[in-house]
């Protein structure tokens, strides 16, 4: 019986990990291509949730989940064009400061537009409740979330590994000078990656809005977890982030099963242990431009 309970937590942790993945993957992509740690990533997650809340009022939940990430991705163009682009080759501390400042401005703007009181998005009635598979309890909504995450993940993997877009991006990560010498402008690819990254964060916000509350500081809440996931997985690694997100979800679930009060601390302990033995993270690549 005890084993079954534990297994249930592991499976639930994997589902939760999928949600962490949506946010962490975008963070990791933007870092690998531009070398910028985007501390404003949580802000795009929050804006995604608020925009989906507004769209839900008029068009319903389905269109909101599709349109909100697209709207935020368009916002990402401005973000990349007018802000990030200036910092690709600058001292990393500058981009850290700029994106951190942007995160604070965004939080305050949200507070001014939508107010400090938390808002709520209701999920469609068909997703309410849970299903029993064997003796495992699953929330219907989270099963839906899992399907979306798997589809998104597959799409991004194909884009990065099977499309010419991905070949340029991957080459750009390792050998930007060589790509330039071949006459390919990396700039539009950078823009596309930032759009994809912040769009994923917004998708996370839109999908998570129905099971949590939408409030101005929600971005700050999620950025830490996303950061931990990326660091554990290894900066710049696609599969590293995937494995790490699932691992963080599972470790949290197991910890809560035995020592509930330590649930939130578990991911930091995990990060500490992994960095102790593997400073570049699980599957972190060696990226030349970040080595001294």
């Amino acid at each position: 019986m005890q084993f079954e309970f534990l297994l249930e937590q592991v499976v639930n942790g994997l589902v939760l990990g999928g949600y962490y993945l949506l946010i962490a993957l975008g963070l990791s992509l933007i870092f690998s291509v531009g070398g910028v740690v985007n501390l404003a990533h949580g802000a795009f997650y929050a804006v995604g949730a608020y925009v989906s809340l507004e769209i839900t009022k008029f068009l319903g939940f389905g269109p909101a989940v599709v349109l909100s990430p697209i709207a935020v991705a368009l916002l990402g163009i401005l973000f990349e064009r007018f802000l990030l682009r200036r910092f690709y080759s600058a001292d990393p501390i500058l981009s850290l400061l700029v994106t951190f400042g942007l995160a604070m401005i965004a939080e305050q703007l949200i507070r001014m537009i939508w107010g400090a009181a938390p808002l709520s998005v209701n999920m469609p009635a068909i997703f309410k409740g849970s299903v029993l598979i064997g003796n495992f309890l699953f929330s219907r909504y989270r099963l839906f979330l899992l399907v979306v995450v798997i589809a998104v993940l597959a799409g991004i993997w194909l884009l990065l590994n099977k499309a010419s877009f991905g070949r340029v991006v991957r080459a750009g990560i390792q050998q930007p000078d060589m790509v330039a010498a071949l006459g390919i402008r990396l700039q539009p690819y950078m823009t596309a990656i930032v759009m994809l990254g912040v769009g994923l964060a917004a998708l996370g916000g839109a999908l998570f809005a129905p099971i949590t509350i939408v409030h101005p500081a929600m971005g700050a809440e999620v950025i830490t977890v996303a950061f931990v996931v990326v660091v554990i997985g290894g900066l710049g690694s696609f599969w590293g982030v995937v494995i790490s997100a699932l691992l963080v979800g599972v470790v949290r679930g197991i910890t809560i099963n035995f020592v509930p009060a330590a649930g939130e601390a578990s991911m930091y302990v995990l990060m500490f242990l992994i960095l102790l033995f593997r400073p570049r993270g699980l599957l972190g690549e060696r990226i030349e431009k970040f080595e001294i």
Partner: protein
Amino acid sequence: MIKYSRRNVVKASAAFAGVSAIGFPAIVSGEPDKIRIGHLTPLTGFLGALGAYAQLGLRMAEEEINRAGGVMGRPLEVMSEDSVNPATAATKAQRMLERDGAAFLMGEINSASAVAIMQVAARNKRFYLQIGARSDALRGKNCNRYTFHVDIPSHVMVYAVGKALVRDDMMRGKRFYTLTADYIFGHDLASAAKTFFDQNGGQLIGDELVATDVTEFSPFLLKIRQSQPDIVCSNLAGNQVTNLIKQYAEFGLPYPIVGFNLNTADAWAAGEGNLSGTWPTVWYHTLDVPASKVFVENFMKKYGKPPENHAWIEYVSLKIMAQVINETKSTDTEKLIAYFETEAQFDILKARAGYFRSWDHQLMQEAYPFTVKPKGQAKDQWDFLALGKAVPEPNESLEVLSVTKDHNECVF
């Protein structure tokens, strides 16, 4: 190049030091006839939304008082800031008293920050009206004679809901599973709940501590399902309760859920259809009392939404202070304390007036259990809660729900 003689430099420095020691009265305290009040409340973090409502209520009272000519003919000036966390709250409180010329302190929702401000008040021997923090310890073992408490303490919230549960046959022989916020307030709530279960035949089969930054409860929900309780009970705080309620509805667990703390802003955020069960409150905007209705109407006119309980409590708190200063003709700490300790009555927009008990400085007032209206009966997005009858009942003493002197560790 201008040459300064050593003597002149020494003289100038001495003069500057002398002036600094005396102070710059005109600059430091601003216009001398204003009564300045230091106010702290959380505007960020898991209680931030409540703090935002607190400020709205406070500002409204400030405007009304000043429009009517102020207090003792002097305008009030409330300096209100984000308390952030206990350490910052203490630093800011000290600064407000020492440098900003605050006559006394008000505010707070977070019990841990309130303890820190109480210590600052005691150290400086200055008055502090602790408005919105509910931990028993503040008016129990951590109490001090400089602090008075407005909001209902945790054990009263437990009694208010507990009595409703006893009435509805949801107590004796029932197995409870509780989730408790892992800080001073949650711990107090859990221990009051345990006492109530023990006295009334309820059985506590599980109690889990939950860190205050938890937003995702699915692993806890699975644990609850494993233990198969009769009733799930929340001892959480702030927007955590909302997250729990929404995710509880998402998983659709079959056990009824109740709780000993839920602020109406957090209930509203859960939305109709997610919330169920019985919960306590100190005030609700549908309360059928004429003075309360006037307040609600004015608030809605000003801000376009109904006041939350923290808006109400800050509003009445500043009105209470204005009344006390007018009566005592002073902002002197000892005079304020002496007046409050006469157990003078205050209109708090409820059916019965309230008074502060002289030996633990706690406001004695009515509280209410609330449940959720059947679907479709809410007039608007804020109206889906059904307020129960006030406790204590009209013929009972206001003190029947509060701990008696021999069960309270408070000594001044």
